[in-house]
C-alpha cells in the first residue's frame, strides 16, 4: 500500500489536471455555445460542427474531476457540494439543456429548431456562469455574506468571458472567411474583458484571504512565482496585438496561435489559483491530507489510473488529429 502523503498528492494533482483539462476543453465548446449567433443559421451550423466530435468527451473531464473528488476526497466532496447545492443544480440544468439541444437542433422538426438553438446558447451561458459563481464562492470560502455573493457574480461573468475567449480562439482556428473575421473580433473583445477579470481576481483574492496573501508575498518561494501574473498579462497583450492586424487564413496555417495563447493563459491562471489554495481542498477548512479516503482503496484504483490515463490521453490526441483542420460543412454521420 502506498503512503497517504503520496496518495493525497497524486490524487490532488490528478484532480487538478482533470479540472484544468476540463476548463480548457469544455471551456471552448461552452464558449462556442455562448457565442452562437441567433440570426445566422449557416454560421451556427458551422460553429456547432466544429465542436461536434468533441463535446461529449470534453464533458467527461468534469465527470472525472467530480469523480476524483468523490473517490479520493469524499469529505471535501460532500462539504463543497452541499454548500453549492443550488448553483450545482443550475449548472446541471445548463449542461442538460445544451447537451440535448446539440442533437435536437439537427433532428427535431424545423419549427422547433430555433428553440433548440436558443436552449443551446442559454444552456452554455448558464453552465459557464454557474461554474464561475461556484468558483467565486469557493474562493470566498463559502462565506454567505453579501460581498461574497457579489464577488461570486463577478466571478461568474469572468468565467463566461474566459470561455468566450477560448471559444472564439477555437473558432479562429477552425473556421474561415466571414465567420473567422467575426471570431477574431469576438476574441479580441473577450481578451480584454478576461484581462480585466484576471486582474480583479488577482487583487481581490489576496486582499480577502490572508493565507493567500501570505502565499504570494510571504516566503521565499513566492518571489520566484511573482512573474506568473506578469507573464499572464504579457500574454493578454500579445494576443491583443496579434488579433489587431489579423490576416485571415484558408487553412490552419498559424491560426492555431490564439488558441495556444489562451490555453497558456488558462494554465497560468489555474496554476495561480492552485498555488493560492494548496494544500487546502476546501479553503481554510480541509487539506487534501485531512480529507483523503482509505489508502488501500486508492491504491487499488491507482493501477487503473496509471494504465488508463495515458491511453485516454492517447486516443484523445488521436481524435483531435482525425478532425484536425478547418471545419467542413456538417456532414452528419
Amino acid at each position, binding site marked *: 500500500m502506498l503512503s497517504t502523503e503520496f496518495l493525497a498528492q497524486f490524487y490532488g494533482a490528478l484532480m487538478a489536471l482533470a479540472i484544468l483539462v476540463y476548463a480548457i476543453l469544455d471551456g471552448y465548446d461552452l464558449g462556442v455555445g455562448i457565442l452562437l449567433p441567433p440570426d445566422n443559421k449557416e454560421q451556427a451550423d458551422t460553429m456547432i460542427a466544429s465542436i*461536434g*466530435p468533441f463535446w461529449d468527451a470534453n464533458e467527461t473531464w468534469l465527470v472525472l474531476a467530480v469523480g476524483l473528488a468523490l473517490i479520493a476526497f469524499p469529505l471535501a*466532496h460532500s462539504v463543497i457540494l452541499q454548500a453549492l*447545492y443550488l448553483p450545482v443544480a443550475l449548472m446541471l440544468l445548463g449542461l442538460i439543456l445544451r447537451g440535448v439541444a*446539440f442533437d435536437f437542433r439537427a*433532428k427535431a422538426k424545423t419549427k422547433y429548431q430555433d428553440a433548440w438553438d436558443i436552449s443551446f446558447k442559454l444552456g452554455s451561458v448558464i453552465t459557464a456562469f454557474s461554474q464561475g459563481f461556484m468558483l467565486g464562492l469557493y474562493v470566498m470560502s463559502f462565506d454567505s455574506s453579501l460581498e461574497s455573493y457579489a464577488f461570486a457574480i463577478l466571478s461568474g461573468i469572468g468565467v463566461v468571458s474566459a470561455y468566450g475567449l477560448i471559444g472564439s480562439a477555437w473558432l479562429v482556428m477552425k473556421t474561415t472567411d466571414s465567420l473567422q473575421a467575426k471570431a477574431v473580433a469576438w476574441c479580441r473583445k473577450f481578451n480584454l474583458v478576461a484581462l480585466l477579470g484576471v486582474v480583479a481576481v488577482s487583487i481581490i483574492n489576496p486582499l480577502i484571504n490572508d493565507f493567500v496573501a501570505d502565499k504570494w508575498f510571504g516566503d521565499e518561494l513566492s518571489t520566484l512565482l511573482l512573474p506568473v501574473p506578469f507573464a499572464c498579462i504579457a500574454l493578454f497583450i500579445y494576443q491583443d496585438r496579434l488579433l489587431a492586424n489579423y490576416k485571415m487564413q484558408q487553412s490552419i496555417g498559424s491560426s492555431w496561435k490564439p488558441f495556444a495563447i489562451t490555453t497558456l493563459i488558462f494554465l497560468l491562471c489555474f496554476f495561480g489559483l492552485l498555488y493560492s489554495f494548496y494544500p487546502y481542498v476546501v479553503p481554510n477548512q480541509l487539506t487534501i491530507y485531512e480529507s483523503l479516503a482509505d489508502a488501500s482503496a486508492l491504491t487499488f484504483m491507482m493501477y487503473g489510473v496509471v494504465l488508463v490515463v495515458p491511453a485516454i490521453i492517447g486516443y484523445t490526441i488521436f481524435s483531435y488529429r482525425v*478532425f484536425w483542420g478547418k471545419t467542413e460543412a456538417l*456532414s452528419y*454521420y
Partner: protein
Amino acid sequence: MLDTLLLSRIQFATNISFHILFPTISIALAWFLVFFKVRYVQTNQPVWLRAYRFWVKIFALTFALGVVSGITMSFQFGTNWPGFMERIGNIAGPLLGYEVLTAFFMEATFLGVMLFGMKRVSPAVHTFSTIVVAIGTSISAFWILSLNSWMQTPVGYEIIDGVFYPKDWFAIIFNPSFGYRLSHMLLASGITASFLVAGISAYRLLKDDHKHAPKLTLKVALTVAVILTPLQAFVGDLHGLNTFEHQPQKVAAMEGVWETEKGAPLLLFAIPDEEARANHFELAIPNLASLILTHELDGEIKGLNEFKGEHPPVKPVFYGFRVMVGLGLLMILISVVARFTLFKTGELPRWQLKALVVMTFSGWIATLAGWYVTEIGRQPYMVQGLVKIEELVTQVPSEHVLYTLIGYICIYALLLAAYIKTLFYTADKSVEVEEYELNPPMRGEQHA
C-alpha cells in the same frame, strides 16, 4: 411537510429512472450498429449502411440524453447523499472511478469518430470505432452493476467505526448477485433495443415505406427478440433464486407472502395490505411459488412477518414484479408470433405491425419495473442489512431539494416528450427519402 430525506429519495429515484432509460437502449443499440456496420463491410450492400445511418442518428440522441442525465447522477451523491461516500466511499469510489476511466472516455471519444469521422478515417478505423463504443457501453454497465450488486449482496469488506473498508476486491467486484444482475440487465437492454428497432421499423412500414432497410431491421430486431426474450425468462428465474438465497425479504415482498409457509401459492393477482399484514382478492396457483423458488412443491418460503421493520414496502415490489413478468411474457408471445409469421409469409400483417408499434417502449416499462423491484426491495437499507438510507442523507434545507426536484421533473418531462417525438419524426423523414438518395443502387439491383 416533506422532509429532506423523502424529497432526496424521490429526487434520486426520478434522476436514476430517467437516466436508466437511455443506457438501456444505447448499450444494446451500439451492438446493433456494430452488426449493421460489419454486415455492410462484409456484403457491401448499401441497405446495411442505410440501416446503420438511420439508427446511428437515434443512437447519438439517446447517448446524449444518457450523458447529460448521467452527469446529474455523479453530482447527486455529493449533493444529496454525502453519507453514502463517507460510509461506503472506499468501496463505491474505486468502482465508480473505474467506470469513468475505462468506459466513459472511451465511449465519448470514439463516438465522435463514429458519428462524424466516416469520411475522415479509413473504413476499418470507423468500424473499429463503432466496436469500441459498443464495448465502452458494456464496460460501463459492468462497473455500475457491480456496485449496485454489492449494495444488494455485500461481501469482501470490513467495518471500522461505521466506515467500510475493502478487504478483497475480487470478492467485491464479483459479489454473489453480480453475474445474475449483469446478465439480466444486458438482456433487458437487448430486448429493449430490439423492441425499439422493431417498433420504429414497423412504424415506417405502416407509413408505406417501401425501402428495404426497415424490412431488414424489423427482421433483425425480431430475430434478436425471439432469442433474448425466452433467455431472459430463464436468467430472470436464476436471478430470482439468487435473491431468494441472499435477500429472502425481497422475494417475500415480490410473492406477497406474509406468514412463513410451505407450499406457497403463486399469486397472479392480489392487493397486499401492509396494515392488516395480509392480501385481499388473491388469485393464486397453489404451490407454484414454492416450486419455482425451492424446486419442491411444499418448499418453505419465509414470510414478511419474520422481517418486521426490516422488509421493504410490499405494494411497489409486489406490483412492480407483476408488471415486469407480465410484460416479459407478452414480449415473448409477440416476438415468437411475429418472427414465425415473418418466417412463414415473409411479411407482417398490419395488425402485427401495429402491435409492434404499441410495444416500441415496452422494454423501458419492463426494465423500470424490474429496477423498482430490486431497488425498493432493498429498502429500508442502502447496503443490504448494514446501512439504512436515513443515515446518509444531506443536511441541505428541504425547500432547496423541493426546488431542484420540481426543476428536474419539468425538464425530464419535456425531454422525454421531445425524445419520443423526435424518434418518430426521424422515422417520418426517412420515409420520405427516396431509395437511391444515399447510395445509388448498383447496376442490376432491383432495390437495395
